[in-house]
């Protein structure tokens, strides 16, 4: 009797392990650290272009 109960419990526990998702993509939170996707920065040329655009665009009189 006892063996059967323990055996069923072990079987249930074993079966339940199948319920775990593929947990390989868990992001572990670290306070104050950004863990999102990286973003491409603007180059110096980009910034220069934006400054020029400001003057000829919004700054145009």
């Amino acid at each position, binding site marked *: 009797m006892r063996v059967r109960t323990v055996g069923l419990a072990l079987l249930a526990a074993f079966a339940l392990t199948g319920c775990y998702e593929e947990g390989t993509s868990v992001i572990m939170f670290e306070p104050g650290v950004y*863990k*999102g996707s990286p*973003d491409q920065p*603007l180059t110096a040329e*980009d910034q220069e272009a934006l*400054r020029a*655009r*400001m003057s000829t665009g*919004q700054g145009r009189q």
Partner: protein
Amino acid sequence: MARMKFLCDAERCIECNGCVTACKNENEVPWGVNRRRVVTLDDGVPGEKSISVACMHCTDAPCAAVCPVDCFYTTDDGVVLHDKDLCIGCGYCFYACPFGAPQYPQKEAFGVRGKMDKCTFCAGGPEEDNSAAEFEKYGSNRLAQGKLPMCAEMCATKALLGGDGDIVSDIYRERITKRGGRPDNWGWDTAYKKA
């Protein structure tokens, strides 16, 4: 290299909502979400002033400070962005923001907020620049195309300026000088008010 800044010249703002719809046009945010709004003080009485407000891209951003999953980051140019994949929609950033910039596309009745959405200074977000995924999640990335935020570029009266903070200051400073103290200097009425 200066930080990107917005400045709304309240002397020129006429509450036309051009900035509001320019943003909706460019970023295609849904009904109910307005990344930019115009606030009017003293509506309908002398002294009425309007000012256009969106995310101010704070140097020390309160939204970033309180976020429980740290989904915010600031670019080298001072633009404050966040990763919607990390965002849990808790609403804490809205609580912290002095300008009410964070918006939530509420769809269900019982307080489910959805991912936070806010003004990105038309700089997109942490997806590949100008990709379909970036547009879908964050709207347009104009900075990566060499253009400035649509709201500022389309302001009817050039009240709203957006771009390199140094140049914004230059333009505004010139206007102030030209106005020669208009609206009338503080205290002018005391000295010169006619009976």
